[in-house]
Each structure stands twice: as structure tokens, then as C-alpha cells.
């Protein structure tokens, strides 16, 4: 009984923290429609700032608290609202999600820049020196007591704010009917600013209260509040009383788990993963949603052409060969991950880009693929790749089953919970056996070695050969993705993304379609993971955890998640440009961790993705045959000169990069020259007979895709 009481108190104190953070989250979500994945990260930054003021600079506790809670945190919230979130109206849920995930990544990066992660920072609880109070047979610390009191105060304060003040009523009005609230002078900007200010103050409060209880580390602290998310979902992201109830359920469950979970080697991970598992369960308990009707957004991804896809694949393979033959061994190791990460990013294209389903656990699938390769791919046995695809696809299909019920933010949270359950628990399991038949030792509680792949008698054991292999696999998979997009299945996915209700009334099996695309995507990620594993030669759970995977997701979306080019963009930025910048600018290399976050935050300005603009920019080359041929010849020539060692890598790289730019200018000039002698559109076919080019020009002006001249003439 004493033990029960003790853990009830522990649980209630944790609940109180979750309740505080979750109510801030719900406040911003209901009033602005943005689910702030970075809520925990705001708390984390606040905890670090408080540590700096209170323990490093020795400010008095009340001053430090007031500065953090009532000045810095609200200002930070207002900054986020004004600079980042306000531009997100009319964007898809995926874009909103990526922006807030990027904020999370960026803030973790920022904390690591300011506060060296390798230094330990002692963090005292409030009134740490005072004697705990006795409650019957057990005791309660002052910190616990304050935490619970703070949560109660927050509950009362929120109730007062929302029901007794004009701005609070305006907030509730905005939840009810935002356009009407605007018509009624609710001044939506002020309301959202206020919501962000209070939301981040509450995050800060929670962060400061939780920080003394755990190691002060940016990533851990940012994700600790996954439990607060569970509490928020429990309240359906709407009802504050339910959020508090949810927080108590989640907090106490965690308390009792730490008290009563039997001590054995399999379960410590479960305790760490329990918040994620609770979140998953809460998500499954949500009521069944109505079928989604049409959603409008600004995003549009054009249909890839066959020619463009083949050109892209050829270009990627050629780039792989060029890199493999020109780079030094250490460079190949550094940049070698571009294409394996690229394959994992590519797995997101059919799932997120075409089907509109969000998954934050692609890297976990990759981890499973790597494990399969490690255990079944002895001596590089390629059959292991097949197994990797099949096993991850099967797991992906199982994950998709609850996905029929979840969408948008809920699906993102569900897949994130799955990723956490894997990296905190499953991946850390010691050796176990299934029905006594198989002995499974996933990562051997540390790292596991992977043999290089052997294919048709050739062993891919050098970084160069792996680079060529991976670029070819990426190229092939990009062709597969394009084939899907152009084919029956792709049309079906896009249709489902647009309107599930319409698809159902046409007789489409939604569950089957979702399961298939999840399995396909998981299989691709598994293949990427298996290849990444054999490239790294030794893998550990850290290679595949949630936080590592988030930038891949974010940057692929920044690149343009509707096309293979977007995936490549994400991978090149993450595994190519970042290390390159770090090598070029060693003095600022530590600041680079913040870049993926910044890129994602910029997405709100261009939801179609960066590749879309790049492609438009280089379009003139593809349109002029002369320039296209000339460009390819020059690039091949440069490569030949480089191979003859007439120029060094830097010169080669510089020339190779300038060539397409020059080509664009040339193509544009050529075009303009020709345009001078052109017959105006309305006169064509009058003074001279129609030609194929005239039809094409007309189609272009009218915004139609190409039509065969003869077909058009007959029709």
C-alpha cells in the first residue's frame, strides 16, 4: 500500500506536467489549427534557458522564472506565430506538419549549438533542500507538491481566461467559427498571437518542471512530452477537462509501470517506450471518423513525362559513376549515404506525395531492413534483400491497418509512436526466441555487423562500387515510382488523396489501397535500409531512431514530395550538402545542424517544393535539342578531361555545375532569337499550312498537354 501511494504521487506529479504542456498544445491547436510538434522543444529550450539563468549565472529563482515564463517564452511564441505559422493558411496538413517538425529539428539543433551536449548540467528541483512532507506512510517532495499545485493553478487560470475574458471568449469563438469570428472583429491575428504566447509559456512551465527529473539533453527532453501528446489526443485536441483526465491516466500509468513492472532484461525498454505505446492506444480509441471529402490546398505536383523520367534515371546513374570515379576514398565514405538515404526518402513519394498518408517511421522500416540484411545476408547473400523487402512490407501493411482510421496529424503521431516504440524498446531487446523456433538477436544490444552485398559474383565492398550500385538502385526505383504515378495504381492513390468519399462511392476498397501503398513504401524503405546497412558495415539502433529520421522526411517534402526529384533533393541536402558545407566552412560547422530545420520552416512559402522551381528553371535546356546535346557533350568532355587528370576535382566540380547554368542562358537566347521571326498565333494556318509545332504551341498557350496532330485533324 505504501508503495502504491508512493507511485501514485510520482504519477500525479508527472501527470501535472503533462497536463500543463498538453493544455498549451490544445490551446494553439484549437485557435490556430496548427498542431505544434515543437511544443516539447519549446519546453526544452526554456529548461535550458532557465538552467543558464538560474544555475550558470546564479540569478535568483523568482527573477529567472519570471524572465523565462513571462518574457522570453511568450515572445518566442509570438515570434513563431508571426514569422512562421501565419503563412501556412491554405497549405496541406503535410506542409503544416513538416513546418512544425522542422521547428522541432531546428530547436534541437539550436540547443546543441548553444549548450554543448557533452557537458553535464546539474539541475536542482525546487526546494531541493527542504525536507519532504509526510503523507501518511509515504512522503511528497516539495517539487512534486509545487508541480501538482501549478497544474491546478493552470486549470483554474485557463478556465478563467477562456470564460471570463474577452480575448478568451474570442479564442473559443474562433474555434467555433473562424470566418464569423473575423467578421465580428475578433482580430484573428491577435487571437492567434495570444494563443501562441500562452501555449509556449505553458510549454516552458512544463519544461522547467520536468527538467530536474531527467538528464538535460535536447533530443530526449523534446520527445519526453510524447506523453503530453497522448493526453492532448485523449482530450480530442479540444476539451481541456478531458486533457487533464488524459494526463492523469497517462502519468499514473507511467508511475505504476515504473513501480510494478517486473525487473527483467526485456522490459526496461518497454518502460521508456510506454508513452509512445500509450499514445498509440489512445489514437486507436478515437471514434471512427466520417469519410473525408475534398480538401483544397495550394499544392500541385505535375505528371512526370516518360522522357523526363528516363533522363532523370540516366542522370542519377551517371552521377553515381562520376562520383565513384572522381572522389577520394574518404570523401566517398562521407558522401556515400546520399543514394541510400535517397532510397529511404523515395519511399515517401508514393505514400506521402501520391496517397497523402503521412509516415514518420520510414527510417524505422529501414532499420528493420538493415537487421534483416545483417542476419540473413551473410557473405552478402542477395536473397536477404528480398527478405528485407518482404518483411518490412509485411510490417508496413500491419501498421497500415490502424491507418484507415487515422489521418493527418493523428497518423503522423501514430507512426511517430511506432518509431519510438521500435528505437527505445524493440531495437534494444536482448536475444529472444520466437516459439522456440528462431533465435532473434536484433542489434545484439549494441551494434551488429552487416556484410557487403554480393551480386552475380561481384562483391560491393568498396565505397566506389557501392556508390554505383546505390545510384543505379535509386534510378531504377525512381522509374518504378514514375511508372506508378503514370499508371492505374498511382491515379487511384491521387484520387484517394483528393476525396476518400468519392472513391468509396465508386467502389474502391480504401483499406486495401492504403495497406498496399504502406506495404510498398515500407518495402522500399526496407530495401534502402538493407543497402545502407551493407554500406555502413555496422549498424546500431541510433542509426534508425525517430529524431534521425525526421530531417529526411522534412527535406524530402521541402524538395517536393510529389516527385522522385524531391526525394533526391532531400537526400542530397542532408547527406551531401551538409557534410560539404561542414568541410568547406569548418569554423561554422557546428551551426549547420540548424539548417534542415530552417529549410523546412521555409516550406510554408513554397509548398510545391524546391525541385519544382529548379525544374522550371532548367526547362529551356530540355526544350532545345541543340543545347541539350551540347550540354551532354560538354559534361562528357569535362568528365574525360578529369579522368585524364588534366584538372583537379574542384575545377571539375565547378565547371560541371556551371555548364547547365550556361546552357539555360544559351537556350533562352536561342529561343528569343527564333521568336523574333515567328508568325503570331492567330495567323498560323492562314498564311502557311499548319505544322506540328504550331499545334504544340497552341496547346501550350491553351494549357493543354500535347495532342497528336493527325488525331486532332481527324477529330
Amino acid at each position, binding site marked *: 500500500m505504501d508503495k502504491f501511494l508512493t507511485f501514485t504521487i510520482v504519477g500525479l506529479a508527472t501527470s501535472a506536467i503533462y497536463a500543463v504542456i498538453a493544455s498549451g498544445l490544445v490551446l494553439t491547436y484549437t485557435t490556430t489549427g496548427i498542431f505544434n510538434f515543437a511544443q516539447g522543444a519549446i519546453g526544452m529550450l526554456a529548461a535550458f534557458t532557465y538552467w543558464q539563468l538560474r544555475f550558470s549565472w546564479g540569478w535568483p529563482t523568482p527573477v529567472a522564472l519570471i524572465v523565462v515564463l513571462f518574457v522570453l517564452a511568450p515572445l518566442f511564441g509570438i515570434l513563431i506565430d508571426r514569422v512562421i505559422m501565419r503563412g501556412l493558411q491554405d497549405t496541406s496538413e503535410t506542409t503544416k506538419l513538416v513546418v512544425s517538425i522542422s521547428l522541432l529539428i531546428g530547436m534541437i539543433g539550436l540547443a546543441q549549438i548553444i549548450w554543448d551536449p557533452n557537458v553535464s548540467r546539474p539541475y536542482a528541483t525546487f526546494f531541493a533542500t527542504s525536507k519532504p512532507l509526510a503523507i501518511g506512510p509515504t512522503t511528497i517532495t516539495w517539487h512534486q507538491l509545487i508541480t501538482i499545485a501549478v497544474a491546478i493553478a493552470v486549470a483554474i487560470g485557463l478556465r478563467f481566461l477562456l470564460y471570463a475574458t474577452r480575448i478568451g471568449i474570442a479564442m473559443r469563438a474562433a474555434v467555433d467559427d473562424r470566418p*464569423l469570428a473575423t467578421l465580428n*472583429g475578433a482580430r484573428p491575428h491577435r487571437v492567434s498571437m495570444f494563443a501562441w504566447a500562452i501555449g509556449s509559456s505553458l510549454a516552458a512551465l512544463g519544461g522547467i518542471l520536468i527538467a530536474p527529473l531527467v538528464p538535460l539533453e535536447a533530443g530526449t527532453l523534446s520527445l519526453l512530452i510524447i506523453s503530453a501528446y497522448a493526453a492532448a489526443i485523449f482530450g480530442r485536441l479540444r476539451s481541456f477537462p478531458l486533457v487533464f483526465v488524459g494526463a492523469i491516466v497517462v502519468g499514473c500509468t507511467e508511475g505504476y509501470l515504473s513501480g510494478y513492472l517486473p525487473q527483467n532484461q526485456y522490459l526496461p525498454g518497454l518502460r521508456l517506450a510506454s508513452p509512445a505505446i500509450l499514445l498509440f492506444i489512445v489514437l486507436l480509441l478515437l471514434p471512427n471518423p466520417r469519410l473525408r471529402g475534398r480538401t483544397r490546398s495550394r499544392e500541385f505536383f505535375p505528371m512526370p513525362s516518360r522522357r523526363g523520367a528516363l533522363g532523370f534515371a540516366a542522370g542519377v546513374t551517371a552521377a553515381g559513376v562520376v562520383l565513384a570515379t572522381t572522389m577520394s576514398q574518404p570523401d566517398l565514405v562521407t558522401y556515400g549515404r546520399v543514394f541510400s538515404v535517397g532510397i529511404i526518402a523515395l519511399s515517401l513519394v508514393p505514400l506521402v506525395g501520391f496517397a497523402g498518408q503521412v509516415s514518420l517511421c520510414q527510417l524505422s522500416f529501414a532499420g528493420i531492413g538493415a537487421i534483416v540484411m545483417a542476419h540473413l545476408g551473410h557473405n552478402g547473400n542477395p536473397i536477404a534483400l528480398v527478405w528485407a523487402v518482404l518483411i518490412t512490407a509485411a510490417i508496413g501493411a500491419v501498421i497500415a491497418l490502424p491507418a484507415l482510421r487515422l489521418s493527418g496529424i493523428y497518423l503522423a503521431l501514430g507512426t511517430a509512436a511506432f518509431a519510438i516504440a521500435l528505437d527505445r524498446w524493440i531495437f534494444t531487446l536482448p536475444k529472444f526466441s520466437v516459439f522456440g523456433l528462431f533465435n532473434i538477436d536484433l542489434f545484439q544490444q549494441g551494434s551488429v555487423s552487416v556484410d557487403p552485398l554480393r551480386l552475380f559474383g561481384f562483391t560491393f565492398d568498396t565505397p566506389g562500387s557501392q556508390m554505383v550500385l546505390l545510384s543505379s538502385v535509386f534510378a531504377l526505383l525512381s522509374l518504378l515510382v514514375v511508372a506508378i504515378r503514370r499508371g492505374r495504381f498511382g491515379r487511384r492513390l491521387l484520387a484517394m488523396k483528393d476525396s476518400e468519399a468519392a472513391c468509396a462511392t465508386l467502389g474502391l476498397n480504401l483499406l486495401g489501397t492504403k495497406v498496399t501503398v504502406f506495404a510498398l513504401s515500407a518495402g522500399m524503405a526496407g530495401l534502402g535500409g538493407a543497402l545502407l546497412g551493407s554500406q555502413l558495415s555496422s549498424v546500431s539502433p541510433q542509426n534508425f531512431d525517430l529524431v534521425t529520421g525526421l530531417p529526411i522526411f522534412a527535406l524530402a517534402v521541402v524538395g517536393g514530395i510529389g516527385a522522385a526529384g524531391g526525394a533526391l533533393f532531400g537526400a542530397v541536402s542532408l547527406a551531401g550538402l551538409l557534410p560539404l558545407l561542414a568541410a568547406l566552412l569548418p569554423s561554422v560547422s557546428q551551426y549547420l545542424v540548424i539548417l534542415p530545420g530552417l529549410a523546412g520552416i521555409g516550406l510554408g512559402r513554397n509548398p510545391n517544393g524546391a525541385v519544382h522551381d529548379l525544374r522550371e528553371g532548367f526547362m529551356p535546356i530540355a526544350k532545345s535539342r541543340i543545347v541539350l546535346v551540347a550540354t551532354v557533350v560538354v559534361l562528357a568532355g569535362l568528365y574525360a578531361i578529369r579522368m585524364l587528370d588534366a584538372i583537379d576535382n574542384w575545377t571539375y566540380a565547378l565547371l560541371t555545375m556551371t555548364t547547365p547554368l550556361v546552357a539555360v542562358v544559351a537556350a533562352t537566347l536561342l529561343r528569343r532569337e527564333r521568336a523574333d521571326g515567328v508568325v503570331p498565333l492567330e495567323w498560323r494556318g492562314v498564311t502557311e499550312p499548319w505544322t506540328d509545332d504550331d499545334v504544340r504551341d497552341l496547346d501550350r498557350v491553351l494549357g493543354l498537354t500535347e495532342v497528336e496532330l493527325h488525331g486532332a485533324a481527324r477529330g
Partner: protein
Amino acid sequence: MSNLSAVEPPDNPARSNETGHQDHNLLELRGIRAAYERIDVLFGVDLVVPEASVVALLGPNGAGKTTTLRVAAGLHVPSAGDVLIAGRRVNGAKPEELARHGLCMIPEGRGIFPNLTVRENLRMMTYVGRSLAEIEEIAYSRFPRLAERRTQTAGTLSGGEQQMLAMARGMATEPALLILDELSMGLAPIIVAELYEMVAQVARSGVSILVVEQFASTVLGVADYAAIMVHGRIERAGRPDELAADLSKAYLGG
């Protein structure tokens, strides 16, 4: 009906009426054309709301009635034509600017917040610079039934009461011109009749009212003038008694 384009500019008595002199027209629409994206909806609408009168805009669905109201309230920018308020051209003015000039629009589907109480709904109106007490005073004196319901959540009110609340909210701005869109939506005829009695009371206190309504017969009992709109044009306009015969044809064909 097929030679609509040949019909001369609508003979709108509201215009030729003795009180219809330029300066006494609270709202005047001249040759309004409007489109959504590339679809034309209004093809030259002329409409006048004289001071202290009730004008009913009638017609079947899709005729462009709501668009006309939206143009008047500044919520939709017309592609051609002029909007005049009290004789002043206000083309392109923002809805909030027009609101400050005394125009209040109550949109279709009850302009209320269902999860807020009656009182909180009224409190949202304090932005006009009146205290809650004043607003409550205006609201409850016009709609006494709301006083009994002041602590009730608006969503639990009956349909008619919700519509009263919406009007009460509108009255808090003490508008000179009240624009009502489909007050009767989803309400039983007897409640609609009751609501229009209140509209008539509001009108008697000197507020001009432009109302779009499907329940034509009901509103004709209250209106001073009426216009029938079909396919983006005012097809007939006049005194209510002159129009009653045309209505059935406009709505049910035949």
C-alpha cells in the same frame, strides 16, 4: 424569358419612388456584374434600398441573390458596376469599413457561435465600442426571449432563437442598413412568420433592411419593395402586391 437580354433596365419602383431620390437611398447597386473565378454570376444588377424601408430580394436558388448581398457588404468584389452607400461610391471598400458606415450583414446559416453562451455571443460584439451592458440592453429589449436564455449555450437554442440571437448581435452595431440572408433557412413556417414580425419591428424603428428569402410570401407581407432575381438579373421589381403572381412561375416554372 429567353429574350431576357432584350428586356429594358428593370423598372424598379424603388428607384422612381418619391423617397427614392439619390440622397435618400441608403444602398444603391448600379449595373453590378460579378463572377466566381471565370463563371459569371451577376449580369448587371440594379437595386436600390431607400432609407427606412424593407426590400426583399427573391428568386430561385442559384439566381445570384447571395452574391448580390455579398457585393453590397463588400465581401465580393464586382467585376463591373458601382456600389453606393448613402450616395457615396464605396467600390472596393473592405467589409469592416462598410460595417463602420453602418452596414451589418447576417450571413446565411445563423451568424452565431454555437459553443458560446448567449451572453458570450453578445460579448463578442463589444468590439464596436459599446459595453456589454449596453449591448445586452439593446438585445433583450428587442428580443425578450433571449434574456431568459442568457446563460444557455447558443447551440442548444431553438432555430428561431438562434436567428434572433444573430439579429441581436447585428443590432449591437446599431446599423443603418441590415442585410439578412435566408433568415428562414431550415425553420418551420410559423417560426419564420414570427421572425419576420420582429424584422418588421426593427424596420419600424428606422433601420433599412435588405433581405434575401426563399419563403417569398412571408417576406412580402413585411417588405415595402421586392425584386425577383433569375439567372443573375433582376427580372421583375415592384410593390409586393404587383409581384405575387410572378413568384410561383419563377420558383416552380410552368
